[in-house]
């Protein structure tokens, strides 16, 4: 302590979120990923976004598959149950759990191999069912834990040290999600803290499945500047579709009157304000989303933002029409029909 205080004041009160918690309460265990990994940046954004919107961690569940990205749910929201499942199979596990307890807020973290290679079938069905969860793909186009093989999102013609040159066309996670009738499709960049936080908050407020494809460079195996999943390339080529502003339902709505903007109200009363940067972009126009994504892919641009949002589509639990109480907490009286009911059935046999 060398500095002499020039004025005395009460210790600064820690900053608290809407449910009275400090940000540190949203941390998890220490990361074991490589230094500088994009995935750790995403974990940090999840912590900030969850804290700022005031998620109750006891009502949050975290899911993942297998891979570097899938390890990360251990590194955030330590007071939430987590399920690190099988490679490419988080989708079915999450579906079962979230039908069982329909009140949970779910965060799924997957990778490009986990989602677009081994898990593409399950992913498409998760999207098709519009299961209520935030589904983050930490997309680096490469297998890290097995040391540098191409995934299904790897660029065609890309060269890696051990795997040579990739001859195949990539899958685009956002286009795949759109084709499966996703109700929330967005892309961001692990290095873009502001946008990613806004997207995460909006995703938390979306009813249904929110797909977030986050380009997250692999500092060890895929960070050459020619890769579209590298930091250098990302920083140079990222073009935001719009500037995002998320207004929580906790806040008073005082939207600045941007000259050219769209507002989308999310199911919990939050607002998403999209300020247009370039051409007219309407995130509720699916055909426009297809065209925009396809053009970006062709032009090798890292286009970020919300491509498509449809807040009104019923989510899976709406369709199943289960009781309001989570199935997991129903008492026996609700689960076993009466003696009389059995008697009637047997009599009719």
């Amino acid at each position, binding site marked *: 302590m060398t500095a002499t205080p020039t004025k005395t004041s009460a210790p600064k009160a820690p900053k608290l979120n809407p449910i009275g918690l400090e940000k540190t309460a949203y941390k998890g265990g220490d990361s074991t990923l490589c230094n500088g990994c994009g995935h750790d940046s995403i974990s940090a954004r999840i912590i900030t976004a969850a804290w700022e919107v005031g998620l109750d961690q006891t009502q949050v569940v975290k899911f993942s598959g297998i891979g570097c990205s899938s390890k990360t749910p251990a590194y955030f929201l330590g007071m939430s149950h987590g399920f690190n499942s099988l490679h490419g199979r988080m989708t*079915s596990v999450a579906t079962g759990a979230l039908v069982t307890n329909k009140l949970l807020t779910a965060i799924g973290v997957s990778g490009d191999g986990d989602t677009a290679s081994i898990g593409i079938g399950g992913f498409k069905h998760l999207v098709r069912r519009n299961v209520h969860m935030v589904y983050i793909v930490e997309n680096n186009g490469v297998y890290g834990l097995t040391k540098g093989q191409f995934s299904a999102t790897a660029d065609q013609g890309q060269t890696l040290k051990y795997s040579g040159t990739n001859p195949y066309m990539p899958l685009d996670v956002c286009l795949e999600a759109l084709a499966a009738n996703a109700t929330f499709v967005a892309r961001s960049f692990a290095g873009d803290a502001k946008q990613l936080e806004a997207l995460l908050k909006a995703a938390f407020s979306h009813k249904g499945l929110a797909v977030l494809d986050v380009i997250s460079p692999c500092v060890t195996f895929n960070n050459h500047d020619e890769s579209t999943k590298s930091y250098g390339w990302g920083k140079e080529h990222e073009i935001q579709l719009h500037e995002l502003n998320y207004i929580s339902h906790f806040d008073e709505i005082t939207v600045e009157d941007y000259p050219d903007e769209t507002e989308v109200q999310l199911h919990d009363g939050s607002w998403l304000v999209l300020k247009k940067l370039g051409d007219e972009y309407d995130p509720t126009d699916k055909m426009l989303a297809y065209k925009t994504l396809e053009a970006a892919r062709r032009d090798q641009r890292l286009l970020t933002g919300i491509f498509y949002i449809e807040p009104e589509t019923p989510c899976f639990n709406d369709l*199943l029409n289960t009781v309001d109480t989570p199935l997991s907490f129903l008492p026996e009286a609700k689960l076993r029909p009466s003696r009389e009911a059995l008697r009637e059935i047997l009599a009719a046999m």
Partner: protein
Amino acid sequence: MSVLMQEPQTVAVHQTIVNDFNINVATANGSGSQTSNSLLIRSLYKMGIPVTGKNLFPSNIQGLPTWYNIRLSKEGFLARRERVEIMVCMNGATVAEDMESVEPGGIILFDDALPIANHRKDVKYYAIPVKELVKAANLPFTLQKYVANMVYVGVIAQLLDIEMGEIKDALSWNFGGKPKPIELNWGMVMRAYDWAKANLTNDQPYRVARMTGFNEGTLLIDGNTAAGLGAVFGGVTFVAWYPITPSTSLIEAMNDYAAKLRRDPETGKATYASVQAEDELAASGMIMGAGWAGARAMTATSGPGISLMAEFVGYGYFAEIPAVIWDIQRMGPSTGLPTRTSQGDILSVYYLSHGDGRHPILFPADPKECFEMAGLSFDLAERLQTPLFVLSDLDIGMNSWITGEFDYPETPLDRGKVLTAEELAKFKENHNGQRWGRYLDVDGDGIPYRTLPGTPSVAAAYFTRGTGHTEYATYSERSEVWENNLKRLEKKFDTAREIMPAPIVDIVAGASIGIISLGSNHPAIEEARARLKQSGIATSYLRLRALPINAAIHAFVAQHDEVYVVENNFDGQLHTILTSELPEQASKLISAAKCDGMPLSARWIAQQIG
């Protein structure tokens, strides 16, 4: 000894044979014969006659040969019997071999439009003018094919003296009381009945007659329907499934019953969810997610589905997640014979998934046990916190069995060691100061306590993983942590030995021969034992109702000189397991295994032993 091994012979033609013969109906798949066959078996059942129906059907929607075999047994034997006394030939594709299959002294009813190669001298033929009778009924063309099969119902009823009131009741039951189809079909049955009465010389010996003392207090039902109903009464909350023969009808029954019985009376909302998954990988993943989150979760599948579920079952075993998997076994390997029965998944299910580990299995032997075990399986899976299998088969699952009436489940649901927020807060206090750990064994039974997501406590969370983990659910690659965890899982498996249903043991004093068997073999074993007894061979019998084995099996084997392990597969799979788990007595265990797509017969079993 060879005389003993034969089934009861058809006796002299002049003697009347009552309630003791087989009827085999040969039709083309998809022709509506199922309704006709169910009318026959239900009428006979309602007359109090012990009957068994075995449906031999192809993996096909329309046109391939199918047979329905009804056994009447006044002694109450319900196993498949291989002989046929009454053959109903409605399918030209198989008529030649069908006619050959009839016992001497038997009778053959056939559609007179079928080409008949040669007439046997030792059987009696009845030609039925099916086309003519249908034509005379003056029905719309689209219905003619379906109603045509009512013709043989009317003719058989007339020849055998089946009570027509029972046929009418069966028809009404089959069509849920809907007057139009009842009237239509009944008209055809009566037309055929009247024709037979006026035109046939009924000098054949087979007759049916009302009986008492056997069918009272029973049901005539298939095991899949029973299991579906049992799950609904057993408190199922989550079902994920993928269509596969012969398991699909279990799910359909469950869905039907649940839709009626498991709705909140005030809101009409469901107290369960049933999800058709995109494949069996997903079905198994969904029940793992659901079981983890606190559902009484189940799926039903068959062999190929089991193969796809292998990875998740290993996960569930290691991460300790309750879930119930019904395997309605059919013939494998590979696609095998999808519509034929087998007990060929015992080994693969017991050891399913890579790495170490075995899984508890229940073996229902009839529809009543399917009903009971559907509920019990959830209790045991939640108690043991592990994937638990119920191995039924196509024979129990899809054929009509006479079975004991179902009792209302009296024991409360066992939800296992699940901590509420309040219990979690008092955990230390209640457990000698020990802090809660998800994989910490505080009770000494190998079963730790778990918490459910959504429990309102900041101390409830833990991280579930298929990787190495400590007692407090943190990641670990340490050797001793791994070994200790597997030792605890072994302890839990030993707890399973004690709480899984014990075998049903029938020790016969002085018997040196023992029989161990399971599941759908039961009626054939009982009949084989009765026959062996008649020829002076006493046998004891242990019917296994679960794996892992417990002390009762050790004692049973110890008590006998030779123990036949009877099962419906080629490799002798249960024999392999018992040999490995009873190494000191393995030399006494003799494998009697057969797999030809049919339920085992008493004759074959008696031959193996006698």
